[in-house]
Structure formats: C-alpha cells, structure tokens
C-alpha cells in the first residue's frame, strides 16, 4: 500500500465530506481502530443501507399481509475509504474485518468507498463470507 501511504488521511476526509454533503449521513466521525494502519469512518445513513435478502423477503411478505410497510431503522455503518489507484490484498481486508466489533445481526460488513482523482466516490458493501445477493 505504498501508493496510499501519503494520502490515506486525505482520502478519509474527502469521503467524509462526500458522505456528509452528498449523502446526508449523520453522526459522522473518523475513528482509528487498534491494529489498523488507517482510520475508518463511522456514521448513520439517512435510511437503512443494506437489508439481507431473506429479510427483504420477510419485509415484502409483511407488507403484503398487513398492507403497511415494514419499518427498518437505519444502522450505523463502518466506511473504509480507499483511493481507486490503490491495491489491496485479502489479508488487508481480513485485518479490517477482524478489527471491527461484532455485527449485531448477520455477517460483518463494511462500506468500501473508492475515491477517484475527479472526486467521484463509489460505495460498495463488502461482507465477510459468502452472502447471497440482494434481490434488486
């Protein structure tokens, strides 16, 4: 991760601004976790970012039977900010997952934010293990 070496703090702050200004995340903070060379961002998205496909099905069934939409509160997410030009390894990702506290339900997940030089940020959900895809 030599490339990232000199700009990981900048990447994190750029992603932080993007989450705050463009995606209206709340309670944002930059935290450094023990054992990780770079800081992580923690924050609350305006609505739930990820729903497991089984829960999606349950929510649809609930909506069908009661006629009211199932309420899912937003959950705090951990965001890993990286630059698009970086190269990561499986061991790096594993170290990030290991540094996270246990998930309240389901698999551990992070939001991978990839920042490009033109300040575009794209967000990907990375989960530990083989998690089947959402029905979108």
């Amino acid at each position, binding site marked *: 991760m030599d490339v990232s070496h000199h700009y990981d703090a900048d990447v994190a702050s750029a992603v932080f601004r993007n989450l705050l200004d463009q995606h209206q995340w709340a309670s944002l903070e930059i935290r450094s976790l023990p054992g990780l060379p770079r800081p992580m961002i923690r924050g609350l998205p305006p609505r739930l970012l990820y729903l497991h496909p089984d829960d999606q099905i349950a929510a649809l069934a609930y909506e069908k039977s009661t006629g009211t939409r199932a309420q899912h509160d937003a959950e705090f997410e951990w965001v890993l900010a990286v630059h698009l030009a970086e190269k*990561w390894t499986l061991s790096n990702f594993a170290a990030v997952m290991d540094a996270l506290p246990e998930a309240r339900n389901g698999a551990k997940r992070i939001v991978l934010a990839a920042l490009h030089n033109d300040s575009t940020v794209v967000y990907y959900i990375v989960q530990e293990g083989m998690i089947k895809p959402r029905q979108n």
Partner: protein
Amino acid sequence: MEPPQLIRIANISGRYLVFDPDAVSALRRKANTNGTLVGTTPQQPTQNIFLGLPIELRPEEVDALIRTNVAYVVDDVAAHQSALQSLDHDSRRAYISSLRLRKQTAHKVFAEMNAQKASIAAKKAERQRDSTSTPASTNPATPDDLKSDGSPFSRNSQVTLLGVTPTSSVNYVSPNAHALPVEPRNSEQGSLCQFMLGNGYYMTPGLRFGARYSVYPGDPLRFHAHFMANEYGWEEEIPILDIVGGGRLATAVKKAFLIGGRPPSTSPDTALPAVRSFSIEWAGM
C-alpha cells in the same frame, strides 16, 4: 455423499475429460460438479452450439475431487496404447470381429431406418396421388405424368452408407491402468474452488461475467448464479478498480462479487481448507 465407485477422469493432452455418462451424472448428483460439455458431433465438428460428451473439468476441480476421494485421474493415451498393443492373438481376433459385428449392426439399423423413411414417403406420395386422382378422373389425360415425376421414390432409393467409427476399445482398457499418482497440488490456488465444492455450491466458467467462476447455490439448471467469484492469493494485490468493476457488473446481473483465498497459516491437508471470502455488492449510493 461418496459415490459408490470412483470416477475415472481421463487426462488427455493436459485436459481433464470424463466420457462415461453414468460418471457424469454421478459427478453432478453427488459431487456437485457439472463440468463443461466439450464434445461435438463427428458430422459437423465445427458447430459449437450443441455440445455433448465428454465433459471437461478444470484442474482445480479435479484437484478437489481427488482430495475428497471421489475421482482418480488416468493417463488415457498411455492406457489405451499399452492395452491395445498388449492384446494376444485370440483377443485381437475377437476384438476385430467385434468391430465387424458392430459395423454390421450399425448398417442394419441404418438400412432399417431408411426403409422406414422410404415407406413413409411412399405412403405420402400415394395419398397425394389419390387426392389428385379424384379430380383427375374428370380429366384422365394427366395421371401418368404425375407418377413419373414422383420424386420421393427415386431419391430415397439412393441410400448412402453411414461411416461409423465406434469407440470400441473401452472394454479392453482396464479402468485403473495408468492411473496417475495422487498428488494434489499444494499451492494456494484452488482452495476457493475446493471450499465452494465442499459447501455444495456448483460452478460454471465465469468468463461471460468477467470472473473466474459463476457460483450457483444448487444445480445450474435449477438456480441462478449467486456469485461471480475470483480466487486470490492471500497477499496477492487486488486493484481497487477490479473490485469496483467486478462489484458493479455483478450487481447489474443480480449477483454478488466474491473474492476469496486461503490464509497461509491453516494446514493444507485438511479436507475443507479455511477460506476467507468477501461478498461485494454495489451499495446503491
């Protein structure tokens, strides 16, 4: 879980092939390995839309099958050559006469098929003639001309002989002859494949989705793929751009992009390697 019989995988010029239909169905049912059909038809060897036996297996799949004691690999060329060259005089003659017999049988079947076709065509022509002869009774000048150009008769009498080359040496090659020594490769590569096979996932080639494997939760005839998977070494560098591209494409086709590999600390001889994998989907924002 274990098939009653070890499955024979033929190694021919570096490719791993399974020719026996029973073995193929056993692989599919019991070892969740479906392989890729690669056999084409002798009449039209260049068409590749309808492919049949044999199936070809990936090297890492073969590795996993050997490790789980489902299959064994045979050097098929050597096995055939040694088996056919070591035939004694009597069995050689028996073999040749069995070839003749099969050829005759094939000819007979083919002749019967043609006779049946000809009789159907004849009946059809007769029916046609009957229907045309009813109005023809009012005009009796033409029926002779109609009969003379009844083309089906003349065409079908020209029966071409079918050239059959039966694959006939199977009975003379003992199934375990020239079995290659069981030495699963000890590399990191293939542990993701082994892990997925061990967990009941099916895999097909993933090239059409830009990955190494398409991973199905069950038989590919019954399920859509859940993952596009790539295996990486534990310390192999993965460009973030590859994760973005793979994740975006996978999400667009309702799959997750899976990357995985084996951490170096776990011992390689366990049946199921401890593989760590990560599922990646577009976050939708």
